[in-house]
């Protein structure tokens, strides 16, 4: 599983260089999900840990949302 994930990550890296622009950013999100789920063992995570992670994502998301709604609606 770990080695398979690594091969998938390298394949995605090649793809992101080829895709370039906004698509490469979408590929980064997929890569992050793979690293988190397999390498960081989130697949075995407790509910407490998932709550903590989602909390961090929520606050970062709030910061982006509040700032970007301002910039995108000018």
């Amino acid at each position: 599983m770990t080695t398979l994930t690594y091969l998938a990550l390298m394949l995605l890296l090649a793809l992101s260089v080829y895709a370039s622009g906004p698509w490469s950013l979408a590929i980064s999100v997929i890569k992050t999900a793979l690293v988190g789920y397999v390498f960081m063992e989130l697949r075995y995570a407790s509910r407490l840990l998932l709550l903590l992670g989602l909390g961090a994502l929520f606050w970062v998301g709030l910061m982006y949302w509040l700032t970007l709604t301002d910039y995108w609606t000018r």
Partner: protein
Amino acid sequence: MVSRLGMWVFLGSEMMLFGALFLAYTVGRLSDPAGFALGSHQLEVSLGTLNTALLLTSSWTVALAVERRRRWLLVPSLLLGLGFLAVKGYEWHSHWSHLHDGIFFWFYFVMTGLHAVHVMVGLLAFTLLLAGFLVEELAVVALYWHLVDIIWIFLFPCLYLVGS
């Protein structure tokens, strides 16, 4: 288990730190898309790709070290991390003259600089582990290293692959 949860809390604060920097980058890029594309095109995509490959491979060997409880697997991780810093150092050296060439290179130096400091801390932790210290905390150090990898996964397209 408790130390792992503690590391996740720390990683949450790291997400805030780099999240704010990436947000500043986004706002900068929205107000000057042409300048960011121009700056990005001066970077070598091949060197950025090489560095991404080095970090992804080091994350893989760290994950294997945790999974198989083999501390020596940190040796390739350490070497790959040093290779990453060597490439980064070469890049910094060749772009140093661009330091005052506008906001893109400000972001380039601040973000890769802060990330490189994180890499150095990780390599120090690997060295301590290999020397027989912190042995119980291998999984915690691994979590930290994977986050350093993830930050670079986002830095790579943001700095090297800005479409024109």
